[in-house]
């Protein structure tokens, strides 16, 4: 089998969303096994997809389908608060991902039953030595089979667009809060120090909230800018 055929096959599966944006692809070893070719042939096919920005090779994590929305797009959005560091390469460290009960508070936010389940995904990103603690809450019913590892290559804005209901609007809230002991430890700053807490509510055209994101950052080293 030629590398061209493997390339075409993978490209087709990506365009048909058999592998949706941000999802992980089989490893090169798995591809080698599947197509029964040499590693060099697989690598050549993957290299071409990487060169065309269709696939991302992430060191230590494997191959991912490239996300659709680039960081540059987010930067160009008017009316979205933009942290000054966006656009640089990032590293992500998962702290927690599990399913939990919705409970009364989030039942009122998502307008679903308090007995349903929510994904709770918490991770730290490191960008230019700046730490950000992210927490993402998604109803299971809207995101069946959500794979948190897509967050390694895709922005949250795109990840929350991959569910059953597509959000259209974003309400952002920015507050200064005090670092609790846990926040101080995670973000490596002084206890009680000021923190910027951003709450992002993603909702559909009809106003149904589909995702809630909390972002915590050291307020003294973070700058937001907004064009209007």
């Amino acid at each position, binding site marked *: 089998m030629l590398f061209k055929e493997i390339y075409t096959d993978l490209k087709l599966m990506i365009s048909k969303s058999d592998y949706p944006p941000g999802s992980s692809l089989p490893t090169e070893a798995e591809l080698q096994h599947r197509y029964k070719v040499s590693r060099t042939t697989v690598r050549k096919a993957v290299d071409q997809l990487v060169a065309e920005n269709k696939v991302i090779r992430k060191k230590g994590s494997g191959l991912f389908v490239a996300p659709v929305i680039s960081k540059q797009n987010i930067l*160009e959005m008017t009316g979205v608060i933009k942290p000054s560091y966006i656009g640089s390469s990032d590293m992500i460290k998962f702290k927690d991902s599990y399913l939990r009960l919705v409970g009364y508070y989030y039942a009122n936010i998502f307008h679903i039953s308090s007995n349903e389940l929510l994904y709770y995904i918490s991770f730290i990103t490191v960008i230019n030595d700046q730490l950000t603690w992210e927490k993402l809450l998604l109803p299971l019913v809207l995101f069946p089979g959500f794979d948190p590892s897509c967050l390694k290559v895709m922005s949250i804005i795109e990840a929350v667009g991959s569910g059953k209901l597509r959000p259209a609007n974003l309400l952002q809230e920015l507050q200064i809060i005090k*670092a609790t002991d846990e926040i101080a430890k995670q973000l490596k700053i002084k206890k009680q120090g000021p923190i910027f807490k951003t709450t992002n509510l*993603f909702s559909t055209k009809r106003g149904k909230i589909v995702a809630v994101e909390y972002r915590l950052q050291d307020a003294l080293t973070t700058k937001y800018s907004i064009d*209007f």
Partner: protein
Amino acid sequence: MEYKERSAAVQAQEYLQDLISFKPDIKVLPSQREIADKLRISRNAVLHSLDKLKSEDLISSKERTGIVKNTKVDINMLGMKSMSSELNDDSVAIVHLLTTIIALPINLQNFFGLETNKLIKIERMRMRKSKPITYEIVYFDQAKFADLIKVDFTNISLYKLLQKKYGIKPTYGKENITCCLADKKISKILKIQKNMPLYKVDSFNYLDNDEPLETTTQYLIGSYFKYHFNANNIYDYRED
């Protein structure tokens, strides 16, 4: 993905957040004992959740009343509205502190352009229920707005005055939000302790002919305010 039970403290926190956000009639929250009994959790867990909510200034303890909800002033960043219409609150008064003429500082050369000589610097303060909440410094090109030196800005909306006096209003701009700790001067003006966190908002506003109009630095007491932003049709920015 595995299933995990919420911790007792998280349950208490979300129970209280539900009361705060979705039960507007409740002004005073249940006591620690009541929360612990209702959720069948320890007093310790309740205490932990209250600390968490206090760290976000969502609640405060009031003597003899119990735990009360706090209401922050919610500012919408967009829409080119002035701070006065944003606050839209009769209980907010504007105090004019001082107007001076200064030489163009280096950090504003970019905005005003090098041909600008002198600036009018207007310092104001906003009070809510007779407590200071913001300290604001506005800069104008003196050559273009010389008359502003004579204006008493007490309880006057700056943008309304510009519209009335000059028939102009800003059409677009840029805003930077950072956080700083109150220094000696600001803590004195705002009557707060030194090193209290403040929002520092620098805004740069332009007329529709791209001419710079004014730039403002605002210091807002961190615990009194929150900002919100609304972005619609976020995915219209998709790449083709």
